[in-house]
């Protein structure tokens, strides 16, 4: 019969046990660490204020001295939801523009894996956010979910466009002011030249007409008008 070598067998099982045990420990520790790491990753976007406002409105607390929370009218909720959708549009645009750049940088190894992880998480969150907004919109007004993002998209584009226009138009005053002073100085030079010429001519005929030249120069407003006409003829 076989003699069972208990010592040798236990050595073998012990070896397997230690191996498996250490592998399990490593795997669990590694996973926990990784999870902790991704949890501490900074979010891609700052807090979503419009979303917070919308949800705060839904969970409005009763004012002091009142038992019931105030009833928020649907129109206010709709406005808040629309603002939230507009902010989502801004974020979608950011994500779309960043995606190309991010993946190229990642391939080249210029940015770390953490950045890519953050990006992917932001993308997933955006998807969930969009679905949520569509659902809320449908709940507030039937079928609004199909058009809310179209409206929000135009709102985002219109706001940006108007902002740019305002920036340009706000320069008007400064430009006009600049041109006024500039034109005045051009006219001054022009008048001086004229005076110089006439002064030189006058000096040749009779001395003492320098004072006249000074007088002409002093007549600011009248001179302005005449030059303006001259400019027009050009």
């Amino acid at each position, binding site marked *: 019969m076989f003699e069972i070598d208990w010592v040798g067998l236990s050595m073998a099982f012990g070896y397997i046990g230690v191996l498996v045990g250490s592998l399990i420990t490593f795997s669990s520790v590694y996973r926990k660490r990784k999870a902790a790491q991704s949890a501490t990753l900074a979010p891609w976007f700052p807090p979503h204020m419009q979303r917070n406002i919308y949800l705060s409105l839904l969970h409005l607390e009763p004012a002091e001295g009142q038992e019931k929370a105030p009833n928020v*009218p649907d*129109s206010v909720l709709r406005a808040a939801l629309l603002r939230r959708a507009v902010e989502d549009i801004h974020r979608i645009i950011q994500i779309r523009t960043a995606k190309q750049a991010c993946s190229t940088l990642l391939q080249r190894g210029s940015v770390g894996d953490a950045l890519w992880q953050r990006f992917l998480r932001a993308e997933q969150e955006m998807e969930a956010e969009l679905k949520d907004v569509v659902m809320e919109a449908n709940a507030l*007004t039937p079928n609004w979910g199909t058009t809310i993002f179209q*409206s929000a998209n135009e709102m985002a584009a*219109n706001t940006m466009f108007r902002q740019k226009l305002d920036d*340009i138009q706000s320069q008007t005053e400064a430009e006009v002011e600049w041109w006024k002073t500039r034109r005045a100085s051009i006219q001054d030079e022009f008048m001086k030249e004229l005076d110089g010429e006439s002064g030189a001519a006058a000096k040749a005929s009779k001395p003492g007409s320098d004072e006249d030249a000074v007088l002409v120069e002093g007549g600011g407003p009248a001179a302005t008008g005449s030059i303006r006409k001259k400019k027009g003829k050009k």
Partner: protein
Amino acid sequence: MDDTETFDLLPIRLDPQSKAISTTSSSRILNQELKTLNELHKTLLSLESPAPPPPIPVNPKRSAQITKLRETGNDSFRKGKHAEAIQYYSLGLKMALSRPLWEPSGLVRDEVAGLYANRAQAHMAMQSWAEGSVDAESSVEAKKAGNAKAWWRKAKCLMEMGRLEEAEEWIGRGLEMEGNESDLVALLKDVQEKSKKA
């Protein structure tokens, strides 16, 4: 963004009478946002439908009024009443820019581009080069391609104000957008000749 399941409760209050939302927080951004929200709420209340309608189709009334104002302005301009034309154009602009924000931005851009370009022309006819230059730039901002007139007008204004370098740069950008537009090329030559003399 934080978790999809949670949110930050903000210290906001709803005024029971006016339905305006206010906050006790002193955060500037939050106050700004609430102001925008309240304005949006008011425009929403003025609507017949509960939710804003989809961008298309557009209510034709306003478009017709804007077109009419532009044409009246054009008539005044042709008669030589430049100041009057500017007033009509400005009115048209005000109308186009006060469209509700959810109406198509492309439409607003088109209307605004035409009106600013025309107002720039009227300003130029009155020798107000500075105003003309700003208006032409606004027109270009609204519509970059296929807007050679506005490119030309801004460049012309810059030239008249003696800002030759700027004019040259501006025409260069314009030519990139418009291809070899003959008017722009001719103006570029003018500018270059002038800067040689200077």
